[in-house]
């Protein structure tokens, strides 16, 4: 496949040679609106100071500044874009981002039938089981592909995508792995079932990664392929989505260099009528880590994304014990119920009341010794065999959420939440632990009351009271927050997280914040203490060190 590498090298050379010329051309004629149809972009700038604070284990560090600006020029069917990023004195986990430069650039042509991108691009096939690349600066994730992507839309609702390129690893895209992928999304109603009221969509994807075998111990596959089939059927009240993926042998550091094939199944169904909504999902993942380099770790060079199938929490204490997707093996369910208790009933009162119950659990998958092998998961073997329908011995996570939302009158609205979370940190090992302690199975009960009070037009306040009770880990937490909002521009808030019953010492994490919004610009200023823990988005997490200092953040679109 040397010609592929040569082709990509040529593409890169063209971009580097002519990209800036093209940008200068666009900028030069920017003032002339006949040449440039549109120019827009967005930026984010962050600055954080770090004071030493022994009470929370915060170290003194040089101030951390980071930011990015996306600039996009459009001219009829052509678009050019780039993102400049900088990271000064990055915090742990972001060290390899240190520096500044153009991290993302592309040229795009788009008309009614084609969408062609040369340069850096993001893509997602279905829910991402075999391909999803995205940018999340908060998590330090940018696994964009540098290469060529062609999308073709037919008139009969068939969408075809083909792409080839190398993934970005921090600032570098010169890693060994090369990705090639095709995808087809088809609306079957327009093609076959024109008279059906049920909308049926089907998708089929195939992704390969090419990486040379330079391992002296093992005979490694240089081309690893994965395919994904999915079908979505949605009627008036019911919808069902089935998503299945399969990956051939892909020994890697994630799976301990075993040769077992991987597979994944996610089924989600929805039922909704007026006042009632039900969502049910099941998920089974077996050996589905997929990266463009075998030895990549943490958030580096992930080709695919495993959706978590657990409730995504936003309250401070509810985010302490999150679930992190386990690509090596997990199996679980989620049930979500929304019910609106009607108005003018005993419980509903004048305005009615919303009830949301969410239950999710996740287990390990069953693993047994493979024929003629002596250990489970031994490197350089098939690894294990697994019964598709059997749960493993370990419960990894379970969460029950009961949430009530009640409008009392025109000024007051109450939100009450109870959460029971069981997090098997003995296995997940995602939580920071105290010295001389071990990872535990954590069982916590969380109570949250949020009060929204509209004082007068444009003046509103929010009060949050939260409590987490557990005998494990760092013990109990209490949290109080008062926020005052002067619409449409200002807000102020003060909060305190109090960790008590901690085996070492009780600690307050107080902070005050203020912010100013105008149009699509937002400036926030915070001073206070932040606990060490995990920052998670969609089942993907990174560790955040404890800190004490000021943080300033500016986001803007133009």
């Amino acid at each position, binding site marked *: *496949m040397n010609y592929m590498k040569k082709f990509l090298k040529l593409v890169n050379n063209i971009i580097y040679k002519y990209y800036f010329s093209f940008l200068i051309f666009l900028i030069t004629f920017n003032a002339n609106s006949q040449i440039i149809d549109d120019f827009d972009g967005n930026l984010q700038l962050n600055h954080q100071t770090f004071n030493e604070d022994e009470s929370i284990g915060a170290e003194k560090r040089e101030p951390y500044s980071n930011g990015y600006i996306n600039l996009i020029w459009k001219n009829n069917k052509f678009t050019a874009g780039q993102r400049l990023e900088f990271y000064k004195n990055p915090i742990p986990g972001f060290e390899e981002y240190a520096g500044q430069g153009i991290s993302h650039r592309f040229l795009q042509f788009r008309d009614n039938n084609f969408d062609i991108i040369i340069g850096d691009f993001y893509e997602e096939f279905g829910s991402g089981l075999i391909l999803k690349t995205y940018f999340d600066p908060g998590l330090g994730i940018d696994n964009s592909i540098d290469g060529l992507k062609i999308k073709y839309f037919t008139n009969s609702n068939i969408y*075809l995508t083909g792409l080839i390129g190398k993934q970005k690893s921090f600032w570098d895209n010169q890693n060994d792995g090369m990705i*090639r992928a*095709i995808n087809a999304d088809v609306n079957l109603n327009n093609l076959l079932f024109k008279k059906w009221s049920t909308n049926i969509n089907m998708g089929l994807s*195939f992704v*390969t990664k*090419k990486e040379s075998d*330079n*391992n*002296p*111990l*093992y*005979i*490694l*596959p*240089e*081309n*690893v*392929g994965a395919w994904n089939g999915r079908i979505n059927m949605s009627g008036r009240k019911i919808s069902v989505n089935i998503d299945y993926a399969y990956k*051939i*042998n892909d*020994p*890697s*550091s994630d799976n*301990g*260099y075993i*040769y077992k094939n991987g597979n994944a199944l996610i089924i989600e169904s929805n039922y909704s009528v007026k006042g009632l909504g039900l969502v049910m999902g099941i998920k089974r993942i077996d050996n589905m880590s997929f990266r463009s380099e*075998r*030895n990549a*770790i943490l958030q580096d060079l992930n080709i695919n994304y495993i959706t978590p199938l657990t409730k995504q929490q936003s309250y401070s204490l509810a985010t302490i014990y999150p679930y992190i997707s386990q690509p090596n093996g997990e199996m679980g369910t989620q049930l979500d119920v929304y019910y609106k208790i009607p108005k003018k009933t005993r419980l509903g009162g004048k305005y009615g009341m919303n009830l949301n119950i969410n239950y999710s659990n996740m287990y390990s998958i069953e693993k047994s010794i493979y024929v003629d092998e002596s250990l489970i998961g*031994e*490197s*350089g*073997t*098939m690894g294990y065999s697994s019964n598709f329908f059997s749960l493993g011995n*370990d419960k990894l996570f379970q969460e029950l959420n009961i949430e009530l939302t009640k409008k009392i009158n025109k000024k007051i609205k109450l939100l009450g939440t109870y959460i029971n979370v069981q997090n098997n940190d*003995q*296995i997940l*090992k995602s939580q920071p*632990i105290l*010295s*001389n*302690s*071990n*990872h535990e199975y954590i069982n916590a009960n969380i109570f949250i009351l949020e009060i929204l009070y509209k004082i007068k037009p444009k003046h509103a306040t929010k009060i949050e009271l939260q409590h987490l009770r557990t005998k494990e880990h760092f013990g109990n937490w209490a949290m109080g927050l008062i926020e005052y909002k002067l619409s449409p521009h200002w807000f102020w808030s003060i909060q305190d997280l109090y960790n008590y019953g901690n085996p070492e010492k009780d600690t307050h994490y107080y902070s005050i914040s203020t912010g100013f919004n105008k149009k699509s610009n937002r400036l926030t200023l915070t001073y206070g203490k932040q606990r060490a823990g995990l920052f998670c988005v969609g089942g993907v997490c990174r560790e955040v060190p404890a800190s004490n200092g000021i943080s300033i953040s500016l986001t803007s679109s133009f």
Partner: protein
Amino acid sequence: MKRIYLILILCYSCDKIDPPYTQNTTQLSEKTVLIEKFTGHKCSNCPDASRKIDELSEFYGENLISIAIHPGDLPEFTGTDDNYTYNFTTNSSDIIANDMGANFLPLGTINRIEGGISNRCWTKEEWATQIDDLLYDPNGEPLSKNIDIEIFNSFNEKNKTLTIQTNFTLNTSLEGNHKLCVLIIEDGIIAPQVDGSDYIEDYEHNHIYRCSVNGEYGEEISKFLLPGVPSSGDFVGQFMYSAEHLTEINTTNNINWTSDWANISNCFVVAYIYNTKTLVIEHTEKHPIIND
């Protein structure tokens, strides 16, 4: 139809590997590689690294010498408590762990070559490739060693003193200054270890760094040049350098070497020579303290 062809071409380009999955053992190299594995008894992933060392040792035989270091500055992995009472840390190995960049576990240096994930530390998946590159040329031919080292040990059971004589010769003229470092490691220590989610009470810890004999970074080799021998030239069959060190197997050198301790038959002397500027280790030898 063209689309179907395209899918078939892509499918055909997948490599399905049939067992056996391992490469054939290559011919033995003359050189040796030292791997310093940074580990901890509370590190759940560290036994995987030990298994990787075993696998590599089986593949490379005597060409691979390993040392296990428990960095004291990572107490969450190496600290002691009621469940993990054995203290594997030493001051000299802590210095090495810090200098090499062992800020999480498990990691390992490979002849202390630069690169890897943290300063000179490599993840276990990278070890094999780095070791292979140090033992064989790009054509797979074994590389010849540029230093010969021989170790002679004399242990006095009564007063627990150990005399170590290290003789060595530079087979080629090496650039820069070099140091000789001598240390003692111990196998067969039975103590608790977490392995994945399991607590193994009687885990066998091997290759444990116990103490340095001549300082954690050793001594200049020039001080061991035998009288009348020039520092370069052709000295086939004759050692150019000879170092003698005396140490004691007692609690001053390692807190676990108490009067009750009786594991000398599982102890080894390791001697290596490295470039003081690049810190890269040129050659390593290992020899048991008794059973000479």
